[in-house]
């Protein structure tokens, strides 16, 4: 790992389009300013790790577990038209009947 020392107000550049500046330092907390193109996602690492962990957990959700969670949730889902109605969806009930 490359380790650099910087003072407040000083900048590190990464490639041609990313700049990281040290804004302030106070009681163990460093504030960084980051200039990067919109195409480069910048996130706190723990957010990123959390999302990966949640995705891994979601990926193994079983159909039956989901059915029981929905019925237990007591949540009133509006089944009316919403944005997802305009997307390509394979309707399992339909294909099941046609096979």
């Amino acid at each position, binding site marked *: 790992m490359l380790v650099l020392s910087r003072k407040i107000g000083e900048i590190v550049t990464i490639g041609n389009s990313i700049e990281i500046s040290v804004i302030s330092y106070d009681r163990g907390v460093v504030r960084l300013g980051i200039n990067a193109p919109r195409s480069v996602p910048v996130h706190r690492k723990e957010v990123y790790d959390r999302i990966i962990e949640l995705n891994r957990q979601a990926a193994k959700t079983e159909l039956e577990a989901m059915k029981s969670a929905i019925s237990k949730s007591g949540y009133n889902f509006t089944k009316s038209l919403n*944005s997802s109605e305009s997307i*390509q969806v394979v309707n399992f009930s339909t294909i*099941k009947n046609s096979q």
Partner: protein
Amino acid sequence: MNKAVDERRIVTLHFGEIKVGKDFIFNFPEGILGFEDLREFVLISEEETEPFKWLISIEQPDIGFPMLSPWLLDIEYNPGKIFSHEKNVFFAIVTLEDENHQMTANMKAPIILNSDSLEGRQIILSTDKYSTNFIIGSNK
């Protein structure tokens, strides 16, 4: 023309063997976080779990993400202008917590499917307004 060429046959964990027309396959150029190798997915709806949808991997069909429109949870959900496009459809991935199967939705990192290009991706919103664990209902 041979119809079979335009169809993929996969054996899913959730729904058994299904045939998927190529017009129903979404391509994820960058995969999904934690599943960067998986590039092709199909969106499936199943009566008993409506209005949730299932995003099932074509390449590894035992992988399937339950998802829900974020607007069903928060009518004012606003992922921001740069991702808003009339052909973009948003979903929040739903997780069942280990202990009590409480459902939570990841509003911070929605899946976007484009109904025109059939491309999909998972984005992370920069705003801190949305939780990765939005609680759905109350599981008592």
